[in-house]
């Protein structure tokens, strides 16, 4: 039987269903794993995604975009295949795509979060392993140097830094991607007994609204406006996208310490290049033990590795006795690598 999913110039293609998964060039029918820009691109004639992702996608693609939603576990017949979506734990509405054809099941996981320390993403449906014959996995952090500490420990470090800033009469500017990362930070840090108020950038506030519409409980936080009185606030924590670093927007905060939350902050070199005061290792992607446990839990005998350090993961899986190979994709690969974790 030919492979159910192959790589074409437009993206990963399922021939018996005649659709693409997260294609990077315009196609007739696209199944989208999640709303990050490198997976959800404009110009397709039809989009299918998890229903919680639709609001986020509409914000990116416009109100007229031909979107259609599915619930997790709901099956849709497309062409000669059955397609269903399953939680990936990466961001709101992120999904693994399961495709079944003549008794063979493939799962294209997209980006997913699961960590060796046993954490899961509490701001969306947590990752669920799905049994399959062939598993297509990401490998953004596909090296054994990437092992995430328990999430509570990292949040404690962030809180300690924030407290320290407040004590020095400064605000704390914490930067992270506005879709997904920012909401995890808000959920983890806007709690009781904190040293000051939590504020967010407008871009984060818009996405928070989409989260709340989908029924996710996020703590109430204020949005920064040109009128925000930073001078009279004490020890504020401001959560904003990375683009604000060294901008006029950030200057308006007055005296502040800045920090960046990303899996790439594991690397000292990346931390120093960012030239922020603090780098917190906090990712929405699986770490190395997480990747290995996720792969094992699928029971798949064949694994196809996409974006990231695919070479190392492929070789390691092959040494474990699995049939492993790589797909070259145009998702957030190492060319953006250290600079942009989507």
């Amino acid at each position, binding site marked *: 039987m030919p492979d159910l999913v192959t790589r074409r110039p437009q993206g990963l293609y399922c021939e018996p269903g005649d659709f693409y998964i997260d294609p990077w060039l315009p196609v007739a029918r696209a199944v989208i794993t999640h709303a990050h820009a490198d997976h959800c691109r404009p110009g397709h004639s039809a989009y299918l995604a998890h229903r919680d992702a639709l609001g986020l996608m509409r914000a990116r693609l416009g109100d007229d975009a031909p979107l259609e939603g599915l619930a997790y576990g709901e099956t849709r017949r497309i062409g000669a295949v059955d397609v269903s979506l399953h939680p990936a734990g990466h961001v709101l509405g992120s999904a693994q795509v399961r495709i079944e054809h003549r008794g063979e099941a493939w799962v294209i996981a997209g980006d997913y979060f699961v960590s060796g320390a046993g954490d899961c993403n509490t701001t969306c449906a947590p990752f669920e392993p799905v049994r399959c014959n062939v598993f297509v996995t990401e490998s953004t952090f596909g*090296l054994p*140097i990437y092992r995430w500490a328990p999430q509570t420990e990292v949040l404690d470090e962030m809180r300690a830094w924030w407290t320290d800033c407040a004590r020095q009469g400064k605000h704390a500017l914490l930067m992270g991607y506005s879709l997904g990362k920012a909401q995890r930070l808000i959920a983890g840090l806007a709690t009781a007994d904190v040293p000051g108020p939590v504020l967010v950038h407008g871009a984060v506030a818009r996405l928070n609204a989409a989260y709340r519409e989908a029924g996710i409980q996020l703590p109430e936080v204020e949005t920064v406006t040109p009128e925000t009185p930073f001078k009279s606030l004490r020890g504020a924590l401001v959560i904003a996208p990375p683009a604000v670093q060294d901008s006029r927007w950030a200057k308006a905060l007055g005296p502040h310490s800045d920090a960046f939350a990303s899996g790439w902050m594991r690397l000292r*070199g990346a931390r120093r290049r960012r030239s922020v*005061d603090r780098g917190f290792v906090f990712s929405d992607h699986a770490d190395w033990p997480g990747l290995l446990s996720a792969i094992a839990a699928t029971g798949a005998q064949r694994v196809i590795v996409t974006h990231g350090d695919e070479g*190392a993961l492929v070789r390691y899986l092959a*040494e474990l006795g699995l049939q492993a190979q790589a797909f070259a994709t145009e998702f957030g690969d*190492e060319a953006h690598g250290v600079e942009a974790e989507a």
Partner: protein
Amino acid sequence: MKRFVALYLALDASTSTLAKVAALKHYLADAPARDAAWAVYLLAGGTPRRAVPTNELRALACEAAALPEWLFEAGYAATGDLAEAIAYVLPDPEDRLDEPLADWMEQRILPLRALDVAARREAVLAAWRGLSADERFMFVKLVGGGFRVGVSKLLVQRALSEWSGRDAAGIAQRMMGYTDIDTPPTAERFQALLTDDVSGARGGQPYPFFLAHALPGEPAASLGTRADWLAEWKYDGIRAQVVKREGQVWIWSRGEELVTARFPEVEAVASTWPDGTVVDGELLAWLPDEAEPAPFALLQKRIGRTKLSKAILAEAPVRMLAYDLLESEGVDRRHEPMHVRRARLEQLGIATSPLVAAEDWAGLATARAQSRERRVEGLMLKHRDAPYGMGRTGNAWWKWKVAPLSVDAVLVYAQAGHGRRANLYTDYSFAVWNRAPRDAADAEAALEATGGELALVPFAKAYSGLTDEEIKRVDRVIRQTTLEKFGPVRRVRPSMVFELGFEGIQASTRHKSGIAVRFPRMLRIRDDKPLHEADTLDTLRRLMAVGAGGGTDGTEDLADD
């Protein structure tokens, strides 16, 4: 060690000088003197000898983390730092060792060197089991001989001064030689840094070196009257300070290492000086009856040897040319005018670097143009009335180097950098054509079909000279044009031409190109140059015929000032 690791992390994370000084002062206020002694030693540039060979550390890390060697190496390539890679792959610690830094250094780290492999294995694994990731990082840095941190010695002195209330110049003076590799720090030595005794003239204690700035532009424009300045050749050897006191000689390198035993000829000459004499000068390989010093290559050959045989002493004899007199008759002369200090040197009969006699700036420029033939790097200009300063301060000393030799070369291989440049392709190999391509199509065809008669010949590696922005740009191009990966190295489809500068060029049997260049670095990216207009091996050979100077390869300069 916890306290020191916290200090290291604070210094490493911060980009602000104020914050760094604050962190240092906080540490000094907190730490016992014997710990502070080690902290100051390590932060001011002291480097303990490698206690565990790197390949042993790698093998132990693979064992402890249960990883195949290739996978560990892949992680190492991504971090660009062995200590980081080891710290992150090891399993979580089982217990917690919380011992003072001095105990770690003296009881656990320094003794590792003398252990046999099996005992060393036990000791390293035991340490790893008891340390957090950040502490393991520090441990590997300390045992691997690669400890470095983003503070200058000057900053450490400033923190010591602010914390103790003592004058910073006095601390700098007393700190000379503090980081010597063979003299581990103690609480007593640390406290001696903070005494009020300013004589400093005890034992072999040297003075802080005075360093020159590179002259921007032409001297006529910025230095005023020629008569105010003394001009000397800028020799290409090793800057050193020779101390003769109490019947004994000490030779200090610019890096404040005691190197007396490595230069017995210089020691012999200095032992005839009167006690209480301290001279700043240049160590040069110099063959008997030669008018000029030998090329740096010969000196390099000599310093590469651990044992000084009769043969090497005869092949590469070393002598010192004095630049300056810092102390005579046991009196600190540094405040005296330059011309007075020179006169004293000559009176003492010490071989002194000759002045370049040219009436005016134009004449001096003509003299400077002969630098390559004379195997010097250019001229030094020193204000005749200036005192001997400390560090790179003031504007009394200028180096006026000759422009580097340069060629336009093609980037062919790239390797990721280390530390701040980890995960970025920053170390490049450059090639020139074996003959001039006829046109763009000729060059293109040669790149398509390897093994033809027209080819690019790699001849130099360089990793400095680009701005962060330029590095990012080149990094992107490298990732987009990669043809092959070999471990951390990528072969790229040639597309970028760089102007490559270097100080010297020599024939070499160790390089495929048959040519070795000294201190290669990137002068600029030549976006305006198509590939086929890059230079050729013949260009390099012609430069070799002109430029006599230079060493056998592009190793780090030992004492460039």
